[in-house]
């Protein structure tokens, strides 16, 4: 099952929650919609599910327009952020709900329902919990029941809204791995919303980075992390240093190193250089700039060094291995040679 959305627009009053967004999810793909709160990612997911109707644009499942079908007839498995389990029903009845509300002609007989629910509970490893109520389950268990309930109607696509948002860190990691395994095993087409970049990068085949109702970048986790398309993606994914610079004929000199702007223009203009903390080399040969060490923190295998440059108001953060730090024996107040290994330049005003 492929999902294709074309030029979707959704407004709430004057506010455009989703603004002219197009996207195609291939069969069997696991795609993350990543963005800060208010970026329109959940609205987009709800539009695909049929829980919201777009003001413009199309949603196609396998190339077929789903626009006139509401959520009840789209056969999408939707897992809600807070699970939305039915509090007054047992776990068994929750999972059976989608089968029980089928029209008389389609509804399976009671023994088939029982069989199916039991096998789904086994799939989510919660078979012994069948007689419990949702309030008697832990967060991670509720999450899995919500998933089993969504799977009961044999959905064509699986849509998950912040599936791990309300869980603690350890459970989140476990469930993440488990969901990835389930996805691969069952061959779903899945789309999930998250504001957690680590989650998106680790779990998804492709990541769609959203901001202010628009897509900033679509790519594999590697692509969006290594070559962010916009300053926003740079800032949103991982740590980054932003240094004001002057672009002269499409080139920038940063701490003695020369960098090219992708789209070169002649003349001079202001810009910003983005560089990851691990792209800054300290104490290397051939460095032509120096900075003062402000602070060193070395818990864990990666050490962080805060640097102060003359004329720069905000400190620059560099990362290096603990071993390298010990070699250099950096102390606060010390001057250290600095080299920018790689950096990306954006002209001022380009969404910065």
């Amino acid at each position: 099952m492929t999902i294709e959305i074309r030029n979707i627009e959704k407004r709430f009053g004057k506010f455009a929650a989703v603004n002219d967004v197009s996207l195609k999810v291939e069969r069997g793909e696991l795609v993350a919609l990543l963005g800060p709160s208010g970026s329109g990612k959940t609205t987009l997911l709800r539009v695909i599910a049929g829980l919201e109707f777009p003001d413009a644009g199309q949603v196609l499942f396998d190339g077929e327009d789903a626009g006139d079908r509401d959520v009840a007839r789209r056969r999408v498995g939707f897992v809600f952020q807070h699970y939305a389990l039915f509090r007054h029903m047992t776990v068994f009845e929750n999972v059976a709900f989608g089968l029980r509300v089928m029209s008389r002609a389609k509804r399976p007989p009671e023994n088939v329902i029982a069989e199916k629910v039991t096998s789904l509970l086994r799939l989510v490893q919660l078979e012994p919990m069948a007689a419990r109520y949702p309030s008697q389950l832990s967060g991670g268990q509720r999450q899995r029941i919500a998933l089993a309930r969504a799977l009961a109607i044999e959905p064509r696509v699986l849509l998950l809204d912040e599936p791990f948002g309300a869980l603690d860190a350890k459970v989140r990691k476990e469930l993440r791995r488990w969901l990835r395994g389930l996805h691969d095993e069952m061959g779903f087409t899945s789309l999930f919303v998250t504001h957690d970049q680590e989650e998106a990068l680790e779990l998804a085949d492709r990541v769609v980075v959203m901001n202010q109702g628009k897509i900033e970048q679509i790519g594999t986790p590697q692509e969006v992390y290594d070559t962010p398309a916009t300053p926003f993606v740079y800032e949103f994914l991982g740590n980054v240093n932003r240094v004001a610079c002057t672009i002269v004929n499409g080139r920038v000199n940063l701490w003695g190193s020369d960098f090219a702007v992708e789209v070169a223009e002649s003349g001079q203009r202001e810009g910003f250089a983005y560089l990851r903390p691990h792209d800054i080399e300290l104490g290397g040969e051939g460095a032509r700039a120096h900075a003062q060490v402000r602070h060193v923190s070395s818990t864990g295998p990666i050490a962080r060094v805060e640097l102060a440059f003359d004329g720069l108001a905000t400190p620059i953060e560099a990362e290096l291995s603990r071993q390298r730090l010990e070699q250099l024996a950096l102390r606060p107040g010390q001057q250290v040679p600095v080299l920018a290994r790689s950096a990306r330049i954006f002209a001022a005003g380009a969404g910065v």
Partner: protein
Amino acid sequence: MSAPRRRNSIGAGPGMRAALIGVSLLFMAVFLVLPLLSVFTEALRGGFGKYFAAILDADAIAALRLTLLVALIAVPLNMVFGVAASWAIAKFDFWGKSLLITLIDLPFSVSPVISGLIYVLLFGAQGLLGPWLQAHDIQVIFAVPGIVLATVFVTFPFVARELIPLMQEQGTEAEEAARSLGANGWQMFTRVTLPNIKWGLLYGVLLCNARAMGEFGAVSVVSGHIRGLTTTMPLHVEILYNEYNFIAAFAVASLLAFLALVTLVVKSALEWGDRQNPDEVRVAGATL
């Protein structure tokens, strides 16, 4: 711990606690229990014979029957309206929503006498619709329809007031989940929404019922006080009292008080049942 053992977390000592409990109990005794007891003692002053004679009097029976009939019409009507209005207010955004919320409270803020008067002005002989009703030989004021209308108006807010905060708190996620699993609107309402609001709904219906049976002011204005025809129990009590027939007045009053007590018992039973539902198990489970 150095803190005195008998003090609780907000620093109230045993003296303070005793004083607070004492004041509440005294207040309850003087203003609630004493009047209630006096109703029953006054009613039984002439012995059980006179008591039952007063209750089994034809006019008293008619008043009881009318009271139950009015409640039987007004309560289901306001139940349907209350659920519909709460649903609309809690789950949708629409133009005029805050106006509707304000209007639902109107019967609470307006004196019941005014409520009755509104119907007289609308349906009375000199009223807005009076000539038309007379031409079609329909009697609203000084008849049962007027009493029902006034009661419906006065008891309008009970169910909605109970349900709106409850439904707002519950949100729409469960309903959306039901829809996404293929349920149609009716299945969603009966299988998900209704079970989630049932305690609040029953509580609202009980309060609505208590008021419907006990309403005096609004009903008094539209009733016309025709004995055996348009007097509900509260009105019948007043008539008997004004005739210095104290034993009969208190006997009928005791019947009304008894109905109120039954309502309270049912309400407490419901609250007890509510405490037994699985939602509370979580609280117990969390402390394990």
